[in-house]
C-alpha cells in the first residue's frame, strides 16, 4: 500500500475531560457515610412494574396472572416478594384442605375443605377416635353379651345343618342302609346281615331285589345330595347373622364416639357427611378392630396408650392434610416461591410404596404441591425453570384454566403407569401465579403459546435503568445503604457511594442514567467490603470500590490482554502513527461472559474500475452478519448518491476487516469502512493514530453506536502500550457523547492532551479530521472545489466511468485495456 504524506491540518482538540466522565460528586449526595441515611425499600425507578404487580395482587379476576419481565439483578424477586407479602397480609387466611378415604370408590379419594387451622384438629380427632375404638370394640366383643349371642347363632346354624343329617342317618338306619365315609365323600349301601352289601352277595340276589335295592339307594343318594346342597345356603345365612350381630354390637360404641366428634363440625355438611360414612364403614368392618395388629410390641407402655391409628389397617380412617394454615403458622394468604417447579412439586403427587414386590398406594400417600400450598394466595415461579420441566407448564395452565388442582402423575400422563394409582378429587384452585423471566421469554410465550395471553394478562416490565437526577441519585444512595446494611457490609463513605454510582452509570452505558442491575452493584459492594475489612477499616471507601471494579476487570481480562499483546507485538497489524491510504482503524467490542472490552481492527479498502460495485469480503465468505452487510450496502448508496452523479458508477471496490477470523456483526464500523473507501478513491492517507467508530446512513450522517466506552478504552490501551503521541484519539458519533463514562486513566490522558475523543456528525467532518484535507461541498455549478477530498474522489470515479465507457465502446475489441 502506498504511503503518502497528507496535507497536514491540525487535529481538533477533542472533547474536554469533563465530558469524558460524568462522575457523581460525593458532595451532591448530602451525607458523609451511609450510617446517616434512612433505609429505602430497594424499589427504585420501577413504578410501572410495581403498579402491575399490585394490580395483579389485588384484582379478583382469576386470569390476571402476572409475568414479571426484566434483566437479571434488577430486583424482580425481592420486589415481588415484598409487594406480594404486603398484599397477602390484607387477604383472608385461606381454608385448609385434606384428602380422606372415599369408602365407596377408594381409588378416588375425597377432597374436603375445612376452616383455617381445622385440618389438624380433624386429623387429631380421627386418630383419637380410632385409638378409642381399637380399645373399646375388642372389649365389647369379648363381653358375655356378645359371646352368648354368638353362641346362639352358631348353635342355631349347627342345628339347622345337623338336623336333616341326623334325620337322614336315622332314616337310612330304618331302611337298612349304611352311610359310609370315603375319601371322596359319602356312599350308601344296603345292609345285609348287619354288614354292607358285598358284590358277590348282590349278584346272588334276584333281579327284583336288586332293582329294589338300587332304587332305594338311588333315592337316598339324591336325598343326601339335597341335604348337603343346603350347606352353602346355611353358611351364607350364618355369615349374615354374624355380620348383623357384629354391626349391631359395633354400632353402639361407634355411633357414640363418632357422634361426639361430629358435634364439633355441626353446620359443616361436608365433614359431617364424611363422619357418617366413617361410622357406617366402621360398623360394617368392625372386625378391623378385632385383628391382632402390632399390639404385642408395645414395650413398657400399657396397651391402652398404644397408637392404633398408626397401624396400616386403620389408615383408611386417616386424614391426609394437603394444606393447613395452622401448620404454616400464618394468618395471611400464603406467598409461595417454588424454586424447583417440576410437575410433581407443582401439582402434587401420588407416592407408592412397595408391598410384596408390588407398588401400592392409597390416599394417605398423596403429597401436596406448590399449587396446594399457595391456594388462596400467590405462587411465584421462575418462568425459564418452569418451561424446562416436562409437562409442568401444561399442568399449570390446566389448573389455571380449569380452576382446580388435579393430581396427574407423569407416568399417567404418558400412559406409562403399570401399577395402581389414584384419581383424587380435584381441589378448587384460587391462586395468583407470578412468573419471573426475561423479556425475550415473555415475547416468545406471547408469540408461540396462544393460551399464555389469556391466562397471564399482566406484564410487569422492570426498567433496566434509572434517570439520573439529583433526587434519584440520593434515593439510589439510600437503596445502596439499605443493601449494605442488609448484607452486613461496612458503612460506605459518600465517595464510595459515588464510586458505586459511577459504576452504575458505566453499566447503564449512559451518563444520564443509572443501571438498575442491583445484583451486579451488590457484588461490587461486597467485594469492596472485603477489601475494606482486609485493610482493617470499618468504613468502605471509594478506593475499595474502585479496586473491586478494577479487580473484576482484571480477573476477566486474560483474553483482552492476549489480544492487546498480539497487537503490540505486531502479530495483529494495527498502526497507531503515520498515515496510510485506504486503511483505517475500526473498533469493535468483544463480550466474554459478563465482561466486555474493545479491540481495534484494521479495515482496508481497494478500488479499481469495474462493474462489481462494492464487494464486502466478509459477506462473501459468510463471516459478516446481516447488519454488517446492511452497513456496507449503505456505503454503496452513499457513494452513488454523492459522487459522479452524471456518469454510471463504474467502481470495483473491496472492503475487508484484516486479520479477522471470526464473524463480524453490526454496522458500527460502517463509517470507518467509508473513510477507508474515500481514502482509497482519493489517494489521500488516513491518520493511523486515530480510530473510528460509528455507523453511517446514506446521507453521510454519523449515527450512534453501542459500547463506546469499551471501544475507546481498547484503542487507548494499544496506544498507551506503544506510547501516547498526542496525535492519537478516537472519532466517535457526536450522539454518543452522552454515553461517555471513560476510565479515569483515559480521562487523565485526554486532559493532558495526549489522547483525544473527537465527536463527529458527518462523514465530511470525519474525513477532514482523518486526512487533514478539506472535504469540500458541491458548488452551485455542480463541482466540488478543486483540491478537496470529495473532488478527488469524484474525479477518480469519473475516470473509472470514462475508462469503462471507452472499454465498452464500439470497435474497441476487448475494451481499452484488453489484449490485442
Amino acid at each position, binding site marked *: 500500500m502506498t504511503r503518502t504524506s497528507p496535507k497536514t491540518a491540525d487535529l481538533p482538540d477533542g472533547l474536554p475531560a469533563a465530558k469524558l466522565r460524568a462522575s457523581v460528586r460525593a458532595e451532591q449526595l448530602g451525607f458523609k457515610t451511609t450510617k446517616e441515611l434512612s433505609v429505602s425499600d430497594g424499589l427504585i425507578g420501577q413504578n410501572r412494574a410495581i403498579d402491575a404487580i399490585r394490580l395483579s395482587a389485588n384484582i379478583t379476576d382469576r386470569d390476571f396472572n402476572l409475568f414479571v419481565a426484566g434483566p437479571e439483578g434488577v430486583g424482580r424477586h425481592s420486589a415481588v416478594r415484598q409487594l406480594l407479602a404486603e398484599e397477602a397480609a390484607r387477604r383472608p387466611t385461606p381454608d385448609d384442605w385434606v384428602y380422606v378415604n372415599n369408602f365407596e370408590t377408594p381409588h378416588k379419594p375425597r377432597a374436603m375443605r375445612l376452616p383455617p387451622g381445622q385440618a389438624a384438629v380433624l386429623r387429631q380427632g380421627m386418630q383419637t377416635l380410632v385409638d378409642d375404638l381399637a380399645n373399646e370394640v375388642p372389649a365389647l366383643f369379648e363381653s358375655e353379651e356378645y359371646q352368648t349371642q354368638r353362641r346362639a347363632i352358631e348353635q342355631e346354624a349347627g342345628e339347622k345343618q*345337623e338336623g336333616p343329617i341326623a334325620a337322614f342317618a336315622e332314616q337310612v338306619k330304618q331302611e337298612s342302609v349304611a352311610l359310609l365315609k370315603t375319601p371322596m365323600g359319602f*356312599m350308601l349301601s344296603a345292609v345285609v346281615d348287619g354288614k354292607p352289601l358285598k358284590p358277590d352277595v348282590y349278584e346272588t340276589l334276584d333281579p327284583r331285589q336288586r332293582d329294589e335295592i338300587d332304587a332305594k339307594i338311588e333315592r337316598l343318594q339324591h336325598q343326601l345330595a339335597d341335604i*348337603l346342597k343346603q350347606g352353602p345356603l346355611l353358611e351364607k345365612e350364618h355369615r349374615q347373622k354374624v355380620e348383623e350381630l357384629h354391626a349391631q354390637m359395633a354400632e353402639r360404641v361407634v355411633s357414640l364416639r363418632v357422634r361426639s366428634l361430629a358435634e364439633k363440625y355441626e353446620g359443616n355438611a361436608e365433614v359431617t357427611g364424611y363422619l357418617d360414612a366413617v361410622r357406617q364403614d366402621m360398623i360394617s368392618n368392625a372386625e378391623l378392630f378385632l385383628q391382632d395388629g402390632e399390639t404385642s410390641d408395645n414395650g413398657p407402655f400399657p396397651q391402652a396408650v398404644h397408637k392404633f391409628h398408626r397401624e396400616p389397617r386403620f389408615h383408611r380412617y386417616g386424614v391426609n392434610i394437603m394444606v393447613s394454615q395452622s401448620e404454616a403458622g400464618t394468618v395471611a394468604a400464603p406467598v409461595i416461591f417454588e424454586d424447583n417447579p417440576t410437575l410433581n412439586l407443582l401439582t402434587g403427587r401420588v407416592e407408592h410404596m412397595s408391598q410384596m414386590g408390588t407398588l401400592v398406594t392409597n390416599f394417605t400417600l398423596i403429597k401436596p404441591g406448590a399449587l396446594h400450598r399457595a391456594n388462596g394466595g400467590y405462587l411465584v415461579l421462575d418462568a425459564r425453570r418452569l418451561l424446562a420441566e416436562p409437562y409442568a407448564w401444561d399442568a399449570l395452565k390446566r389448573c389455571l384454566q380449569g380452576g382446580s388442582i388435579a393430581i396427574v402423575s407423569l407416568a399417567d400422563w404418558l400412559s406409562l403407569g403399570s401399577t395402581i394409582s389414584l384419581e383424587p378429587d380435584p381441589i378448587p384452585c384460587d391462586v395468583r401465579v407470578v412468573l419471573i423471566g426475561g423479556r425475550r421469554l415473555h415475547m416468545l410465550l406471547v408469540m408461540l403459546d396462544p393460551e399464555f395471553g389469556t391466562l397471564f394478562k399482566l406484564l410487569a416490565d422492570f426498567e433496566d435503568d434509572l434517570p439520573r437526577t439529583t433526587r434519584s441519585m440520593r434515593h439510589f444512595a439510600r437503596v445502596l445503604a439499605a443493601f449494605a446494611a442488609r448484607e452486613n457490609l461496612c458503612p460506605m463513605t459518600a465517595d464510595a457511594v459515588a464510586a458505586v454510582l459511577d459504576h452504575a452509570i458505566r453499566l447503564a452505558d449512559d451518563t444520564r442514567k443509572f443501571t438498575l442491575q442491583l445484583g451486579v452493584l451488590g457484588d461490587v459492594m461486597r467485594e469492596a467490603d472485603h477489601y475494606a475489612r482486609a485493610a482493617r477499616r470499618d468504613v468502605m471507601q471509594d478506593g475499595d470500590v474502585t479496586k473491586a471494579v478494577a479487580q473484576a476487570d482484571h480477573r476477566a481480562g486474560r483474553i483482552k490482554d492476549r489480544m492487546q499483546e498480539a497487537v503490540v507485538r505486531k502479530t495483529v497489524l494495527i498502526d497507531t502513527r503515520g498515515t496510510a491510504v485506504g486503511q483505517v482503524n475500526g473498533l469493535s467490542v468483544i463480550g466474554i461472559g459478563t465482561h466486555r472490552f474493545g479491540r481495534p481492527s484494521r479495515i482496508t479498502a481497494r478500488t479499481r474500475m469495474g462493474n462489481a460495485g462494492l464487494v464486502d469480503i466478509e459477506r462473501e465468505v459468510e463471516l459478516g452478519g446481516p447488519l454488517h452487510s446492511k452497513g456496507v450496502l449503505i456505503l454503496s448508496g452513499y457513494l452513488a448518491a454523492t459522487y459522479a452523479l452524471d456518469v454510471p458508477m463504474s467502481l470495483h471496490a473491496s472492503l475487508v476487516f484484516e486479520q479477522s477470523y471470526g464473524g463480524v456483526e453490526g454496522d458500527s464500523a460502517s463509517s470507518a469502512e467509508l473513510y477507508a473507501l474515500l481514502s482509497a478513491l482519493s489517494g489521500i492517507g488516513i491518520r493511523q493514530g486515530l480510530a473510528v467508530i460509528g455507523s453511517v446512513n446514506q446521507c453521510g450522517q454519523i449515527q450512534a453506536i453501542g459500547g463506546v466506552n469499551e471501544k475507546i478504552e481498547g484503542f487507548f490501551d494499544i496506544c498507551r502500550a506503544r506510547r501516547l503521541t498526542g496525535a492519537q484519539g478516537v472519532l466517535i458519533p457526536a450522539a454518543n457523547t452522552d454515553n461517555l463514562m471513560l476510565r479515569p486513566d483515559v480521562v487523565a490522558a485526554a486532559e493532558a492532551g495526549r489522547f483525544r475523543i473527537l465527536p463527529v456528525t458527518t462523514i465530511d467532518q470525519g474525513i477532514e479530521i482523518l486526512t487533514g484535507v478539506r472535504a469540500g461541498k458541491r458548488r452551485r455549478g455542480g463541482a466540488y472545489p478543486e483540491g478537496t477530498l470529495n473532488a478527488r474522489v469524484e474525479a477518480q470515479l469519473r475516470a473509472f466511468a470514462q475508462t469503462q465507457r471507452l472499454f465498452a465502446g464500439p470497435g474497441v475489441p476487448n475494451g481499452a485495456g484488453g489484449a490485442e
Partner: protein
Amino acid sequence: MTPVIPAKMRILVGANSFADAVTALQIARAVAAEFAASLGGLLVDDDDIRAVCALPHQRVISASGALLLSPSQAQIRTLMNAEARAFRQLLQQIADPAALDWSFDQQMGDLVGTTMAAAVGWDTLIFGYRSSHPFVGKVVALEPSRPDDGRLGALAETLARQLQTELVVFDVGAGARPHPARRRFVDPQDAIAALNQMNAQAVLIDLSRGPIRSPGSLRKLIAAARCPVIVLGASAATPRVVHDTHFPVANKQPPRAT
C-alpha cells in the same frame, strides 16, 4: 380340686381318610403342645368301602352334594396312597414344632376294630370324622360310669377352652360331679340319640370306665356324633394280644417318615 391331666399323653389318631383325620389332628394339635408326648397316625383302609364301590350303579355324594361316579379299585388304591401321604405330612407338621415323637401307618380293616387293636400302649385314641360345616359345635363329655381320676373332665374342659366352645356333660345313670351344662340320660342309647341331634365338635369318652365300653357301642357313638371322638382307656378295654402285633410300637422310638 381340678384333676391334673398326665403331662405326657400318647395320642393315636385313627381315620378312614385324610378328610376325617384333619379334624382329629386339629384336636390333637390343640392339646399336643401341652399334654402330648408322642403322636401316632393310623389310616384305616376300610374293606367295606372297597366292596361297596364295586357294586353297580353306586354313586359317591360329595360334601357339596354332587353325585359322582364311584371310583374303581385302582383309583381307590391311588387315592388311599395320596390320603396316606397327606395324613403323614400333616402329622409331621403338627409333631415337629411341638418336638413330639410321631409315627404313622396304614392298615386294612374296620376303623374301630383296627384302631382299637392298635391302641395298646397309647393313652388316647382320636377317631376322625370329617366336618361337613363350619359352625362351631360343642364339646361333649360322657361322664364315666365309674369314678375316675378326673382326667376326662379335665381334658374336656381344656379342649372346650382351646376350641372356644361350650362343654356339655352327658351323665348316664348315677350323677357325679356338678357341672353347669349337664344333661342326664337313663342309658347310653338315649345319650347317643341325643348326640345324634346335636352339633358336636368333639366327644370324649373313657372306654375303660363306661358308659360306652364295647366297640359296637363306640361305632354307634361315632356315627351319631359325626365329629371326632376322643377315647381314653382304650388300651385297657382292648384284649391283650401278642406284643409283636402291636401297632405302632409306642414305647419305642417311632420311625421317622422319609
